[in-house]
């Protein structure tokens, strides 16, 4: 930067970026500001406990009070149960389960109760809660802190499953999840919170509708479908593929359940070649469901069998080379794209 550049000029030259962490914090703050029925609870969530271990809820308890924003004991069943109960009578609780693997100790509350009470009560009650939880590879946390378990929840009727890969989508999806009259599991990726990404933080009226995928790159040779962190890797792989002369249509699902058939199927019909990528174990994963529906609906239009890349059929390993071997990365996505197009 020239010494002569004015601060304003410097500002203009610097691309505007934002982070998912700031977007989530703003989404919660704006939602609390807008609705006195908003509540939040979870381990270490309030400001005396540092506003969450990542800081997503920083500032909320100071601003909106200890009644509405509460740190909890390490009691996942109690956390989700309290969220459910308050939601039954008109509150809008956002519950944080620190890590996605810890949803396992609250599965009864999530799967048997949150997801089913509307149906089992014949629509007399509903559970408009959001369960925020983080997960993902990258910090060498091993087998019980990094699993992507979205398929378990996507397999349960009555709960929606969402994962954002950009700050703008993180904001818009979280606000929509809060607005939604039914329970939503909101998955955050552990290594993505502080990564600067293009674009500013959205305004308070920004929403991303649930159930609507984003076509992040249009193309004609291959349809590439992903979500969460690997949507970012997929975007990069699609760019690299373009340099090799491949035209890739890249779709970020954003909502995993219910997923957006109206966007995915026409794209698959157009390209006839589909690659689905996720960090979760490939076997019985979300990719299997999408591939099955594409086969059911578009068998004759496909030029190649639908291809999937996913996590290895093993617990998440600790050692760095093993961890890198576990899940798809940019290069493996690129290789699969080239192979599919060939």
């Amino acid at each position: 930067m020239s010494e002569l550049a004015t601060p304003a000029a410097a500002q203009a030259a610097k691309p505007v970026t934002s982070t998912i962490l700031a977007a989530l914090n703003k989404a919660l703050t704006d939602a609390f500001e807008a609705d006195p029925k908003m509540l939040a609870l979870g381990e270490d969530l309030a400001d005396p406990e540092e506003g969450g271990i990542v800081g997503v809820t920083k500032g909320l308890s100071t601003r909106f009070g200890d009644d509405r924003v509460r740190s909890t004991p390490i009691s996942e069943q109690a956390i989700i149960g309290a969220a459910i109960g308050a939601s039954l009578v008109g509150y809008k609780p956002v519950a944080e389960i620190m890590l996605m693997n810890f949803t396992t100790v609250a599965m009864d509350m999530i799967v048997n109760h949150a997801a089913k009470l509307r149906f089992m009560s014949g629509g007399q009650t509903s559970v408009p809660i959001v369960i925020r939880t983080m997960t993902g590879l990258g910090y060498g946390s091993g087998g019980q802190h990094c699993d992507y378990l979205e398929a378990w929840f996507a397999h349960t009727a009555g709960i929606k499953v969402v994962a954002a890969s950009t700050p703008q989508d993180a904001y818009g999806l979280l606000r929509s999840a809060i607005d939604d009259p039914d329970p939503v599991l909101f998955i955050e990726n552990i290594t993505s919170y502080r990564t600067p990404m293009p674009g500013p933080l959205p305004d308070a009226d920004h929403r991303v509708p649930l159930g609507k995928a984003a076509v992040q790159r249009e193309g004609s040779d291959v349809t590439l479908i992903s979500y969460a962190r690997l949507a970012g890797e997929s975007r990069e792989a699609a760019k690299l593929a373009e340099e090799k002369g491949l035209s890739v249509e890249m779709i970020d699902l954003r909502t995993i359940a219910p997923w957006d058939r109206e966007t995915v199927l026409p794209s698959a019909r157009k390209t006839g070649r589909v690659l689905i990528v996720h960090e979760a174990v490939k076997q019985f994963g979300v990719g299997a469901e999408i591939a099955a529906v594409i086969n059911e609906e578009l068998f004759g239009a496909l030029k190649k069998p639908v291809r999937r890349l996913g996590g290895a059929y093993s617990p998440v390993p600790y050692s760095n080379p093993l961890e890198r071997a576990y899940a798809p990365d940019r290069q493996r996505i690129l290789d699969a794209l080239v192979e599919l197009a060939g």
Partner: protein
Amino acid sequence: MTTHGFNPGKETLLDIYRRAALLLANDVRARKVISSGQIAMVYYSYRGQEIIPASFCAALRDDDYLCTIYRGIHDMLAKGFPLDLLWAELAGRATGSCKGKGGPMHLTYPPKGVMVTTGVVGSSMPIANGLAWAAQVAKTDQVAVATFGDGASNIGAFHEALNLAAVWKLPAIFVCQNNGFAEHTVYAKGTSAREIADRANGYGIPGVRVDGNDPVAMYAAAKEAVDRARAGDGPTLIEAVTFRFMGHVFGDADTYIPKDMKQAAVAADPAPRFRQKLLDDGVATEQELAALEADIERQIDEAVAFALASPWPEADDLRFDVFAEEIMV
């Protein structure tokens, strides 16, 4: 009629008896209707435990919340669940409280505070905390009651819920109906605590053991807990000691219940015993009670008839109430 010098008064005693008589008659009818083949359902009889909810519900208001369990039809009827909607739901009809989608284990009726009925042991408690939290935030003086059995005091949800309720000083009341058996397993074989009420000590909240078959003692314990919760002084664990006359599920052979134990309990059948006491103490006349009971039978007749004459749900109903919006695929 007094217990520890406490006298709830004639009106409350009759209120408790009216509820108890309804619960007793409804259980007898449910088993009859199942046995006759008119309605096929999995049924968890509460016979013998009627006095507990008949008493604690007399200490509650309509806008107080109840989370109960699969053996909970006595709880919800005592709380005011309408008989016609109940029976239509038991019969799986479209006119049931839950449109036939919930059934006996998931009966729900928010207008009377019956917010959740769970089929999972222990799960009534964490949700009752949330209802209590809502009342606390809204600064109403509503309370939330969770009922459950002795077996449920051994599942994690019990401990997580009591701890959170204590830490947050929630207006929650945990009513353990200790009927001596966790499904088929006798109390001492599955529960380490001498008394379930003792477990309250671990959470720093009041724990009260009471004869759940004694309406005055049960009402007094409930009233004290309700008053404490409404005043903002936090939760209470009530262990209401009772006995389950039937097996775990209607139709099981209940060979695990010692015969002499069962005979003694049946001989001291709490609802008829309470009835006799009302007569002996001059609280009510035979004629008054007989009229009340006849009216209950008539109401049940009408509810069963309504249920059996009601239409079944349509297959297409599966697409509704999964989410607020209908399922398209």
